[in-house]
Structure formats: structure tokens, C-alpha cells
């Protein structure tokens, strides 16, 4: 018989550590082996814990191959509307805090606001040197934010990592990226724009909406959430 509920947890880094801590704090014991991506909560109803990439947890909750999971609010909001509509945010958790921000080279001293950036984007367009390029791992959130601020003349460069170095390796002119302390930005000669805060993120407890429609699963999920009192 398949396990009754599947719980998705981040497979690495601080998100994983902090997620496991929450279960431990609430006397729910999850055996963690670094190489095994499957585990379970020992002292709870039929369940299976799946360690996955945080981005993948969002997608698996949407297609209901996971019932409940922990992931970043930024990753949920970056996903397509069709994915988001299948997921319920049960609660924001007290870790994984970070801001998605717009950052520009420190030496662009004439640019303080998105309005300035918008003017620069037209300079690029008018000089016929292509569009202002924005490196990001978050194209959807970036597009929505720029549109709301009147910035239209730019091109997204999809980045998978080390986004901060893109402006200095001719891969983009500016970036949008997640930052928690701002130290990485500073070390890479970048600075956040004053009005360039796209999203405040933290880890979240997420539930697949489809699972909530299944009476038996819903009961188990709510029982589990009731046990996890301390976030």
C-alpha cells in the first residue's frame, strides 16, 4: 500500500537544516541520511518524506505528487499562475528570510531609483546597442515588477547561479537576485536600488489543494500541522 501522505522537504542547505529542526522541535522524528532522498516521520501516521530541490517541491505540490511541503515563498511566487493556483500557503515560517531585489553596478551613481533605470533602458534602446539586459533566476517576478514600475525596454538573461558577476562579465548590465545580508552584493560591487524591492521571502509551509479535497488526506495533513505548533 502506498504511503498515505507525501511530505516534501528541501534536500540541501539551510532550508533543509531548518526544516528538519521544525519537525524535531515538535517531537516528530525524521531519519536524515545524506545520500538517501526518502525517509519518513517515525512516530506519525503513514507517510513518506521526499527530499527534493526547493523549486521542485512547488511543482510536485501543484501536480499533487506531494501533499504537503516546505519551500521558499519566492519560488512559489515565481512559478506560473497555473501552478500557484493549485497550492495553498498554510503559513510563513520563521527562517529562510531573503529579499528579491534589483541590483545595479555600484559605479552607476546616477541611478538611484527604478525611474532612473527606466531612463537608462531607453538610452540603451536609442543608442541601438540592444536592450538593457537583466540577469536573473526569477524572470516572472522580475517581469511583473518591472511592468508595474514602468520599465519595459529590457531583456531577461536567464541565470542559474553566480548572477552577481554577470554585469562585470558582459553577460548583463544589471541583476535581480535574492539577498539576505547584502554582503554578496557588496563583494561583487553591486548595490540594491532604493525602490527595487521585488519580494520579501521566507520559507513556507505549503499544501497541495488537491490533497485538501481528499477527506482522508486532509485529516492527516491537519493532524500533522496541529502537531507542528512551533515554527
Amino acid at each position, binding site marked *: 500500500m502506498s504511503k498515505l501522505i507525501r511530505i516534501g522537504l528541501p534536500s540541501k542547505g539551510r532550508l533543509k537544516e531548518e526544516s528538519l529542526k521544525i519537525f524535531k522541535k515538535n517531537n516528530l522524528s525524521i531519519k536524515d541520511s545524506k545520500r538517501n532522498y526518502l525517509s519518513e516521520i517515525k512516530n506519525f501516521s503513514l507517510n513518506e518524506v521526499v527530499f527534493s530541490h526547493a523549486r521542485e517541491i512547488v511543482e510536485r505540490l501543484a501536480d499533487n505528487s506531494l501533499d504537503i511541503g516546505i519551500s521558499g515563498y519566492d519560488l512559489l511566487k515565481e512559478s506560473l499562475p497555473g501552478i500557484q493556483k493549485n497550492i495553498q500557503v498554510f503559513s510563513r515560517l520563521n527562517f529562510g528570510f531573503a529579499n528579491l531585489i534589483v541590483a*545595479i553596478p555600484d559605479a*552607476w551613481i546616477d541611478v538611484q*531609483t527604478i525611474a532612473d533605470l527606466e531612463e537608462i533602458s531607453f538610452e540603451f534602446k536609442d543608442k541601438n546597442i540592444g536592450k538593457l539586459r537583466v540577469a536573473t533566476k526569477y524572470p516572472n517576478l522580475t517581469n511583473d515588477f518591472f511592468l508595474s514600475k514602468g520599465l*519595459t525596454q529590457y531583456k531577461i538573461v536567464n541565470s542559474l547561479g553566480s548572477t552577481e558577476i554577470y554585469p562585470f562579465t558582459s553577460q548583463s548590465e544589471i541583476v535581480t537576485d535574492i539577498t539576505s545580508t547584502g554582503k554578496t552584493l557588496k563583494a561583487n560591487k553591486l548595490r540594491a536600488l532604493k525602490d527595487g524591492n521585488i519580494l520579501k521571502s521566507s520559507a513556507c509551509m505549503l499544501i497541495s489543494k488537491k490533497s485538501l479535497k481528499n477527506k482522508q488526506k486532509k485529516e492527516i495533513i491537519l493532524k500533522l500541522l496541529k502537531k507542528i505548533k512551533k515554527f
Partner: protein
Amino acid sequence: MKSKKYSEALLNLFKKKGFKVKEFENIIESKIIIERSGEIFKKSLLSFEDDNGKNFSLRPDLTISACLDYIKNVKRGIYKYAYFDQAYRRTFGKESLVRNQLGCEIIGSSNLQLNAEIINLIDQSLKKVIKYKTTIKINDINIFYSLVDSLKLPSRWRLRLKRHFWRNDYFKELIMRLETNSDLQKNVFELDKRSYFKMKKLKQNEMIAGRKINEILNRFEKKIKEPRSNINGARVAKIIRDFLNINCPLKNAKIELKKFEIKNQINLKLNQFDVFDLKLKNNNAMFSTNIGRSVEYYTSLVFEIYKKSKNLNLASGGRYDNLMQTLGAKTKVVAIGGAINYDNILKL
């Protein structure tokens, strides 16, 4: 078969006036659109990649298809297009991905008589086919630009207001910011003054993320010289809002605008505009400063046609003299066109 009856009748009327009914390519290279419109439009494209990583899209708009056809096949002279076909856009669940577009375009002529010709053609054809009385609303968006130029504003604010005139919601936000000076940052320049003096000593042609140091410093200096605090934001915002409320019969438009000039002590340079002399067959022609703001590429004359009794939009269009070049034409090719709001026609 209401749909077929209307489309055939309208296309036949267009053909009688020398328009050629054309079918366009279904697929276009996405780069052409993205280079022109930026990332925002990319979101609405239905795109795919070929084996070489080249990105293609289903045609999102038939005016753009007509322009691309002209660039590829016609190349010079006047060409009168008529079309009835489908365009495809991502709609995020609100509307259908497929939209029927019926329209006509005259590409390659700056003859001002064509302005009236295309409006009269669409209006009269609609009247014949749907048999309802119509009202035409006319505007020339350059009058708004002239207003902005006449106001006491820093040049960067002028550019901003012109660039975002076509984005109604964001434009409202801009006007609010202008009114309240809410983005005024008095201390902002002080923060970067140290860097400014350091950068003055560097090689001025050195590039930092795509911009020369001297470009950065010049713009910084310009900002200091044109502080926004000098603007009487509330007054300027009021003038712009009042201007956008002007709505009168076309025959009285010049007089109304002159009154507006006197009241606000500005000069709109009205003699340079020919919109007031349009020879329209429909007596119900209105001048409205607030129309034609939904399409980014219009450059001067814009029009909208409504069913008189219900104020239902039946057609809209305008002159787009810069679009062809941004889509790849080697020289400036002027154009004017209009599209029937086919879904609304079917509602009648």
C-alpha cells in the same frame, strides 16, 4: 453564420477601394518582436524553439504581420492591405488564445488624405454592413506631446510622460508621483558625490556594465542641475488631467484647445496639427484627447469608432510611422491602419 457574412461583406467593400486581401505567415521569429517591444510582450507570445535554439512565435498581431510582409515582399511604394485571419496570444485564462482580426492598412504613403480615407472607409463599411449609426472619436497624440513640452518640467520627466502615455494605469501613477513629489530624494545626490569625484579621475571611456564613465557622470551632473523640487507638481498634474478630459465635437476642437491654452498660459502650437481639418463623411465626429492610448506604436492620428446608441467600440486604428523601421525596414516607411473589433460586431 453571422461571422462569415460580416467578414465577407467588409472585405468586399475594402477590395472595392483598392485594398488587396492578403494571408500572412503563421510563424514569425520572436526576436523581431522582442527587440521591438521588450520582455513585456514576450510574455504574451506563443513561442517555441527549433533544433538550433532559434525562437519562433505564432503571429501575435496582424498589423505586425502586414508590416513584415511589406518589408519582405513589397519593399517600396504604397500597398493597401486588407485581412481577416487569426492572431494568437497567451491570455492567462481570461480570453481565448485565438483572436479574429479584421483590418486594413495602407503602408508606404504619408499622403494626409489617406488619414481621412481609412477612417471613412472603415466607418462607412461598418455602417453598410451592420446598419447602425456610428460615432467617431479622433485624437492626435502629438498634441499631448506638445502639451508636455510646454510645461515647466525637467527633460527626464517630459520623456517619461511621453513614453508612458500609452500605458493608462502606469501613467496615472506617474501623474500622482508628479503631483505629490513622492519620489523626491533630496539627500540622494550627497551619497554618491564621493564616488563622483573619484570617478572623475578615471579614464572617461572606460566601460562599466555597458556604460562609459563619462556617460554616467554627465547624467549625474544633469540630475543635479535639474532637481525635481523646482517643479510645481500639483499644477502640472492638474493641467495634464484637465487636458485629458477634453472631449468635444471635432469641428470645435481647435477653439476648445485655444481656450485651454489661454486658461493655463501655455502654447500647444496648434497650427502644426492637421487633425482639425480631417474631411470625414460622418457628422458625429468627436475630438477626445484621451483615446488611442492602448497601443504603443501609434505616432500621431488615432481614431475609434463606436456604435452610437450603445457606446460600443466597433473599430480603432491610427498612424504608425515608426513601426516599420523597428521591425526591420531599412528606411522610414510610414503607415496607417485600423482594425474592426470583431467580437463586438458579433454581439450586435
